[in-house]
């Protein structure tokens, strides 16, 4: 009976199945009723919803961004733990969220960015992490723990972090100001791009005017919108990561992008430099998260622990170009991304999910694009 109850609370069993099984086990109608009520109060109300985590399973299904592990990360894990890993990729948080929200199951690990963690926790799709199984937890820098999107790290283990800013060709752009105001400079008109992301574009102008990237104040957003529309004619395009190619070839001289993409481009064109503007920017963190209906929770925990090893973390960061929250991995990295100083940190902000205000921001982004 306990088993059956746990499966119901863990969301792995439909109510109809629960009633059938409970009746078969001889539970009284009253008991069934109160248990169903407990379930209806929301799956996040069930603390032991992860269920008892047993021995390591033989399989693990990972759903990750493309090219977000080092070439040997998965093969080494498979060999050491005797687990067969299926590795599927997605190309954006939104796509992963839409799929999970529509009810898809079968994945044991996903890698959401901060705001996406908030969404998954809020709708009850995130399992709690059993910290006792994560023995390498101490390798993580406190800077990346206990963030607003997952207080106490109940559901996540930090994976990679990065900042947005802009990259420029030092051989084409003399000395760019370290300010988001660079986009207003008509000197580089036609050679600049911003990211194809409403939060990032508005975020850059919100920061320029001294506001928060998570602001939902209509006046502040309106000012940022006006800035974005004023800048738009100077832009060649709204393009995110794929702008790397154009930066290398010289079609674009100045591009808003994330630091890791810049690092990758620098490998082919050393004249590319990265700037985090002095007004501040968005910092983000991707985390490992176990969906509540995962079938191989133990293997998932072991993978989380494995990722926290210094050598594994360093290899991953060397491949992606982004920062590792694993402080012991830093000395092992070939291209270490230094942690932000306290001063820099005061100007960096994590993007949070805006809840119902998401529609407002999307409306503004639509209007910017239609201008």
């Amino acid at each position, binding site marked *: 009976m306990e088993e059956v109850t746990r499966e119901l609370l863990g969301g792995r069993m439909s109510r109809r199945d629960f009633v059938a099984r409970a009746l078969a086990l001889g539970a009284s109608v009253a008991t069934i009723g109160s248990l169903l009520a407990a379930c209806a109060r929301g799956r996040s109300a069930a603390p032991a919803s992860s269920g008892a985590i047993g021995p390591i399973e033989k399989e693990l299904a990972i759903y990750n961004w493309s*090219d977000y592990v080092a070439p040997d990360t998965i093969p080494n894990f498979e060999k050491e733990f005797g687990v067969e890993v299926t590795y*599927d990729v997605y190309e954006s948080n939104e796509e992963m969220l839409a799929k999970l929200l529509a009810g*898809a199951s079968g994945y044991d690990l996903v890698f959401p960015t901060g705001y996406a963690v908030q969404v998954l926790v809020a709708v009850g799709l995130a399992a709690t992490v059993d910290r006792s199984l994560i023995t390498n937890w101490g390798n993580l820098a406190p800077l990346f723990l206990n963030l607003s999107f997952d207080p106490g790290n109940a559901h996540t283990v930090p994976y990679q972090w990065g900042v947005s800013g802009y990259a420029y060709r030092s051989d084409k752009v003399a000395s760019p100001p370290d300010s988001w105001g660079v986009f207003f400079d008509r000197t580089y008109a036609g050679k600049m791009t911003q990211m194809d992301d409403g939060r990032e574009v508005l975020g850059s102008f919100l920061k320029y005017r001294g506001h928060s990237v998570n602001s939902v104040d209509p006046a502040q957003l309106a000012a940022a919108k006006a800035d974005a529309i004023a800048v738009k004619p100077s832009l060649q395009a709204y393009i995110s990561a794929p702008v*790397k190619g154009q930066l290398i070839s010289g079609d674009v001289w100045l591009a808003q992008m994330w630091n890791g993409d810049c690092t990758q481009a620098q490998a082919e064109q050393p004249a590319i430099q990265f700037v985090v503007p002095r007004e501040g920017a968005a910092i983000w963190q991707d985390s490992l998260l176990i969906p509540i209906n995962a079938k191989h929770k133990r293997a998932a925990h072991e993978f989380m622990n494995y990722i926290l090893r210094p050598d594994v973390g360093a290899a991953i960061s060397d491949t992606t170009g982004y920062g590792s929250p694993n402080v012991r991995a830093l000395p092992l990295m070939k291209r270490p991304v230094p942690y932000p100083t306290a001063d820099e940190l005061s100007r960096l902000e994590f993007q949070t999910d805006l809840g119902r205000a998401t529609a407002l921001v999307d409306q503004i982004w639509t209007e910017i694009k239609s201008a």
Partner: protein
Amino acid sequence: MGARLPRWLLAFTAAVLALLHLPLVVLVAFSFNASKFSVEWTAFTLNWYRRLAERRDILRALRGSLIVGGSATLLSVALGTLIALALARHRFRGRTIYEAMLYAPIVTPEIVVGISMLILLVLVHVPLGLATITIAHVAFSVPFVAVVVLARLSGMDEHLEEAAMTLGADEIAAFWKITVPLLWPGILAGALLAFIMSFDDYVITSFVAGSGSSTLPLVIYGMVRRNIEPSINAISTLILVATVVLLYLSDRMSRRAATVDE
């Protein structure tokens, strides 16, 4: 054969076909380029082809794409042809509305189809996998096949089968020996369209694919945030080469069969 076709027409066609293939030349060239980004030519290398052997994920995805593409094409050709025959040869209540509704899958945005199909699959507890991908692909291919075969059927003499039957053939023989050969260009055209749509579908596939089932677009589109590694160019080149070789061989075989018939 081509003797009656004016020269300008042939030149125009050659130009259009050449332009269609120009990006392919670029694609193939970059499969031999040493640079990781397909931006500028750096040096010649066969590295990316060697990498293909290591990239199990790409090879598995190719296998998935071929299985799904082949099955979806066969199924949608069968279903679509039957629908076209019904619409062309029979008058029934609601015929015009049915024909209009054929276009519904074509007009609906892929993300709407993908998410709603996933919701339904989850509701009825169908496990996601290559089969669900195939089901979805057939759904959006059938209208294309039906419309193309219908265009072929218009104006075609529907009494040829009757004539064959008065000469002693039964319905089945009449169908296979008369109808299908007459329809063949339409069926082939529809099959080609169905296959290329299935082979390259991303949005719908990403929603109805289960963990572990993979097609080429799923792997390729996932790379767009990093960069499309040239091993993708390599596998595309190999696919093109394989297709050309198969085409040549089938042309030779049908040529030989034709001479034997004579």
